[in-house]
């Protein structure tokens, strides 16, 4: 019995902590639902996500559809909302409608924008996941253990923070070699210090909470304290940062592609499409406009949702900020 006491204490501390977290999340969700801008952002993002998932079904043309000489000559640079013909999968000529117009080799811009959503969202999520995971691990280690570990990690973060994020990403891509995968890695690495700094601060604060101190006092292992008690309490800032970061990461990835450091043709990445077709901005503005709109709308939606999440998860800080 004497040995069972600490265990039952540990379980009760866990239960108290998780029920507090659960109620906080449900309150946040209620607050978020009342925020129209955030909900609008969320809806748009869901639409883009559906586009990304079902791109092959939604887009009339495939991602690597080869134009024929006839289709190039027939369909090139058709304005939005125009009709034409295309060779279908069966090899037969069929009528085609181009809601976003066509590019200089007769490809449907709508199809490319839809396929582009898959690429841009994937780049954004992977890079943010990398940055979030890396930043959280480093930040929690620095904040929780303190001392030399904190000093080493914090100085490393200071060095990384001395460089502007996009510049750091450009340096990393340049050293790894330009490609979409390396752009994701570069943006992920470049984002690590921002997450780590916030997580470290939140950890420093969270580790002083009563239940954390209690857990330490009863001899709970550090990893358990970090995972069960600190992480759930610092998830809000991570989530807010990630949502806002997704928008900026997608923009940065498009920027890297625009500079020739990301995707290469014929990948319909939005940034690359804008880079390629800015040459014809005067002649066929719709290609850049629709790719730019998709990019802007996605980023705007992430920002609106991120703002809403911040207000929902940390209403006091938001009210203070206002």
């Amino acid at each position, binding site marked *: 019995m004497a040995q069972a006491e600490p265990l039952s204490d540990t379980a009760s501390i866990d239960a108290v902590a998780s029920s507090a977290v659960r109620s906080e999340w449900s309150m946040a969700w209620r607050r978020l639902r009342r925020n129209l801008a955030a909900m609008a952002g969320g809806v748009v993002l869901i639409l883009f996500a559906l586009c990304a998932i079902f791109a092959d079904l939604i887009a009339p043309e495939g991602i690597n559809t080869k134009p024929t000489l006839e289709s190039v000559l027939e369909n090139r640079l058709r304005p939005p909302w125009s009709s034409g013909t295309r060779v279908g999968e069966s090899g037969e000529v069929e009528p085609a409608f181009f809601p976003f117009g066509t590019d200089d080799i007769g490809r449907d811009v709508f199809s490319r924008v839809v396929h582009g959503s898959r690429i841009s969202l994937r780049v954004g999520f992977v890079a943010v996941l990398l940055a979030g995971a890396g930043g959280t691990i480093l930040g929690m280690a620095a904040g929780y253990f303190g001392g030399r570990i904190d000093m080493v990690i914090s100085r490393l973060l200071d060095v990384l923070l001395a460089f502007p994020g996009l510049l750091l990403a450009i340096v990393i891509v340049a050293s790894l070699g330009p490609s979409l995968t390396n752009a994701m890695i570069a943006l992920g690495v470049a984002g690590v210090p921002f997450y780590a700094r916030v997580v470290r601060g939140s950890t420093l604060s969270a580790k002083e909470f009563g239940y954390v101190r209690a857990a330490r006092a009863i001899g709970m292992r550090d990893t358990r304290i970090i995972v069960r008690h600190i992480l759930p309490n610092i998830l809000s800032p991570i989530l807010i940062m990630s949502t806002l970061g997704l928008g900026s990461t997608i923009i940065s990835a498009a920027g890297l592609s625009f500079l020739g450091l990301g995707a290469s043709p014929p990948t319909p990445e939005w940034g690359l499409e804008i880079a390629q077709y800015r040459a014809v901005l005067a*002649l066929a503005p719709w290609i850049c406009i629709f790719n730019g709109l998709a990019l802007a709308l996605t980023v705007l939606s992430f920002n609106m949702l991120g703002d809403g999440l911040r207000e929902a998860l940390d209403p006091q800080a938001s009210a203070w900020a206002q």
Partner: protein
Amino acid sequence: MDRGKSLSRRNVLRGGALALAGGVGVAALAACGEGEVEIREVEVEKIVTVTEVQQVEVEKVVTQEVIKEVEKAVVVEKEVVKEVEVEKVVTKIVEIEAETAARGLQTGVNLFRSDESVPLGEWNPTRGGRITWGTPGPITSLNPVRMDQWSYRNGFPIYENLYTWAPGNTIIPWLASDLPELSDDRLTRRIPLRRDVKFHDDTPFNAEAVAFNFMLFLDESLERGEVAGKVGDIESVTVVDEFTIDLKTKTPQALFMQVLADFQITFASPQAYITYREDIARNPVGTGAYKFKEWQEQVSVTYERNDDYAWAPAWATNKGAPYPDEFVVQILAQDAVARAAAFEAGEVDWIQHFQFIDLERFAKQDNRIIIGRLAPGMPWFLHINSMRWPTDDIVVRKALNHAINKKLVVQRGNGGIPRIAGNILTPGTIGYNADMEDLYPWDVGKANQLLDDAGYARGDDGFRYRDGQRMQVEFPNTPNPLSELYKLDIESSIGIFVDIPNVEFATYINDMAQGKYTHQWTGGGGPDGDVLYPKYHTSNYGLPGRAFAFLNYNGEPGVPTEGDPIDALLDGARSEFDESKRAEMWMEANRLIQEAAVNLPLSDAMGQWFYNRDQIGGVALSTIHEPATVLDFYDKKGG
């Protein structure tokens, strides 16, 4: 025999002193008369000091030499006729096919041969103002020893050649006063120079200056640019008299006039070399119609009119100083969008461009004239590396040739205006082998059959594999308007993956030299089969920006592969003075290259030049090897 001084720095300087002293001696003779007068003069000099006695003795020797050379020049008269016959380089020109011309007109492109003068409007020159061109290439140096491809094309207003290409693809004198005399052994060319030319620093352009420049061009200890590849056959350059040089080649060179007319061998003031040394790159002093004024790094280079200019080549309408006060090269390198935007905004008067989409747009505007220039030589083609898997297999190379839909692939680059090419030389080029035209017609079925028979099986993803390795060809995304269509075409037609990685320029050049890609987009204009030399002579493999591994490459950059049959043919043609035999050698080289399927010809080369007729007037002449002359341009902006 020539008793001139051998070529070294000391001897050139000594030669200059001797020539100067000789000149004084000759002048003294002319003033005083002959025979006895000369003896008396020597005796008088002897009285003064021992040193001066020696000086006079030297002078006498030089005087004798000059007389000897004059005698020899008379004897060689017959050779002049032979030389002109031999060196009259081109008679065949690529005529523009009616179909091609029609396609051009349909798009609004005025098609001309590469050697034609094109008036931009009525000839109504006005003095003053400035003309500006938006260059597609960077300027790295304006030192003739160090200049690279685009530095020449941007530095041409200040530097000039001994000879120049002219309309009709002929070669005429420029800084030389006449065509050279060729010695019996065909090794030495005696080149007479113009006597009225001076550098921008007022020093004379004479034989010493030419020899000085050649001394630097031949100095292997210097870091040299493209000129190094042009002077490799030169044995020596000797000063004969103040305005005559002897240029001796190591072996008989039938095409050497072309080398002298190409834009790499240009001359800077020796005084400027001495004054500025390495800094001459930023303080160029030449003989051109424009003088250097200002260089804004990565922005522009400004030249100003050389008021003393009076030695324009025969084809120039304006033989004197140029009309504009200034000529500005606006550096818009590697950014086609910026170049087109600057042209559209009127910031530059003319550009050289490579995007069909802009061509199409500007062709619709009345104040622009779009000139497409069709040149003989090599077409726009895709080099194939025969030393890298999988294109080391001739079956794969043939399959690629059969599979590609050329009409589709070239759409973005030139809209399909020029003729679709089926050979590594275009019709009209001397040495063109008509039997090789379209050796690999478009036949996707045959391409797949070849690959199937060779055991390149398709995997579940649609791509072909061999021993578990996916078949892949690759070239860097430079970017090139053809890349994307090539990828889409080849991947869907024969299941070979096309990788187009993004790489920065320095990496691209380095990797290309090491043969790290299977493909290279390239081309090259020229009047005859010698255009194959920089791409297919093994001595050029592995050099930056050159062709890479092909057939018998021994792996040593810059060193020919012993026994290579194409080397033998290309070298043989260069030393063959009989034009028909030379053409046969090129035709044979053409056959070997095509049968090896080491290239993928796409379409005839078409240079695209856009001029704003509201802003610039005159006559545009882009000779076969470029650059376009600016001698006949004038400002119409009212400057």
